[in-house]
């Protein structure tokens, strides 16, 4: 008797996607409330803000990689473009809204140009080109010293302020970034569930027969990349103004691996997967700090544990927690 009851409660939890989002939303609100009341200290607020920023990144990458099947490894570089554009614009006196707009548009345009250049390539080669593009942007970040001050990075980036209201403390930024994250989830969730979203999945499954239904494949891909570029820019701008210091090496390999891990662990082609992936990997990273490791071997051992966990997940749960598809 017990199991049947347990099953149908959880059955509703599992089946209706809405339940997942509802529970997540409730937990999120509780955490924010605790932070604002100061019960949980600023460290939690910081972790939540970072989760929000990377969440926007991961669902936008999932839109392109999971739903449309485009193996795009340039997302982290677009994130960097957004950060640098937003920081440089604000430091040269433009208003925040204008610089946010440009910080979103520029990566979008870059994404479309990249897609235009690689429209004929198959998935493996697309992966190589986008990986090359990331390295190209990284070497521009680090070598174009006159614009980005190269390895010195940009510091003292002013905080976000619009209509003479500045977001000062971490808690305020937490609320702002959570709103941004929720809005992004709503938008991308609706895109994937709309008929356009269905088209994206069709592009992933079988381009040729989609062409024969009179759909302009290339235009669809451009739109998908543009949208994901926009959100990468948004995340970049939030990151720049939150940490007030950006440097080239936070937009390269280490973060690229983090993003890919999040998507694979969370599960491709499912928004729940992308969101859940970010939360679980961030908590994994932070809880590694609690492990009592003797200080002299602290650093490398944490990395080794992280790598081992990553490989184990790949071996035993390649589809990820919520994943529905396996990328061919």
């Amino acid at each position: 008797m017990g199991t049947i009851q347990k099953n149908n409660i959880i059955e509703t939890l599992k089946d209706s996607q809405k339940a997942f989002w509802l529970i997540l939303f409730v937990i999120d609100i509780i955490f924010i409330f605790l932070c604002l009341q100061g019960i949980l200290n600023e460290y939690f607020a910081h972790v939540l803000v970072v989760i929000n920023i990377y969440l926007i990144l991961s669902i936008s990458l999932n839109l392109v990689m999971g739903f449309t099947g485009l193996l795009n490894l340039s997302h982290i570089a677009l994130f960097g473009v957004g950060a640098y554009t937003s920081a440089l614009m604000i430091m040269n006196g433009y208003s925040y809204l204008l610089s946010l707009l440009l910080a979103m548009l520029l990566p979008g345009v870059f994404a479309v140009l990249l897609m235009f250049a690689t429209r004929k390539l198959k998935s493996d080669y697309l992966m190589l080109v986008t990986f090359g593009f990331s390295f190209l942007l990284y070497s521009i970040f680090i070598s174009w010293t006159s614009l980005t001050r190269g390895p010195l990075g940009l510091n003292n980036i002013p905080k976000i302020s619009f209509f003479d209201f500045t977001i000062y403390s971490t808690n305020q930024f937490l609320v702002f970034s959570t709103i941004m994250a929720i809005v992004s989830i709503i938008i991308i969730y609706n895109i994937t569930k709309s008929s356009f979203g269905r088209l994206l999945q069709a592009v992933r499954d079988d381009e040729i027969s989609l062409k024969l239904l009179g759909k302009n494949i290339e235009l669809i891909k451009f739109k998908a990349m543009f949208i994901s570029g926009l959100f990468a820019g948004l995340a970049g701008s939030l990151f720049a103004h939150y940490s007030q210091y950006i440097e080239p090496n936070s937009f390269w390999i280490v973060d690229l691996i983090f993003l890919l891990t999040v998507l694979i662990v969370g599960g491709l082609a499912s928004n729940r997967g992308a969101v859940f992936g970010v939360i679980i990997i961030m908590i994994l990273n932070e809880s590694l700090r609690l492990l009592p490791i003797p200080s002299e071997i602290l650093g490398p051992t944490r990395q080794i544990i992280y790598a081992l966990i990553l490989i184990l997940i790949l071996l035993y749960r390649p589809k990820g927690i919520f994943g529905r598809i396996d990328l061919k």
Partner: protein
Amino acid sequence: MTLLKIHNLKKSFGGVKALNGCNFNIEKNKITALIGPNGCGKSTLFNVINKLEYQESGTITFLNYNISKIRPYLVSELGISRTFQYPTLFENLTIRDHIEMAMFNDDQKFFKSFFIKLFGLKKNNDKKIIEILNLVGLEKPLNTLGSDLSYGQRKLLDLAIAIAHPHKLIMLDEPVAGINPKLRQKIKEILIKLKEMGETIIVIEHDMNFIMDIADHVYVMESGQNLVEGKPKEIQNNKKVLEAYLGE
């Protein structure tokens, strides 16, 4: 009135001349059959019409548009829909998705489809979908995924998609290959019903008696060229056809 006119079409892959100057006139509201030994260029002809592959020379005119050099999706927008010998469906999408995507083309407009979803204005066109599925005789719940269909059911869904897509001409690539006789008979009835509804159909098929029953006009091809054309009965006992088909 000729719907589709193909004149002196040439297409070769490396040294192999798949199409070597062949000509066809497809009459409106008729079933035209295309037969020939394997590798005589039948499927290549379809691919060239659909612009999945581009021809070297020769012209294709459809409803007096010259569609020799246009993009694949424009061909299908003009109203040519097609099925495949081995249908590849969208594995993770439902039957309803397949048909809806075939029927409407406005899902490409991002903002329109986004706001429809946002405000839940999506009209329910299941009725029309079921109508087409019944026409094709595919009784499966609308939310079954592409991956859960058998070979025969995939063939029927492929046919349903071709019908659902707004079209003036349907090109069928071996619709009954590997299909059990009962289903084969059903497909025959479907094609005849479609012809009565004013459709124009081109069929590629090996099963001679299937062709004989339904075709109004038959083209026989061999190594990329027209061999002979005419009524099914004339073709049946034509010497050259027997030699090309059975003689080897």
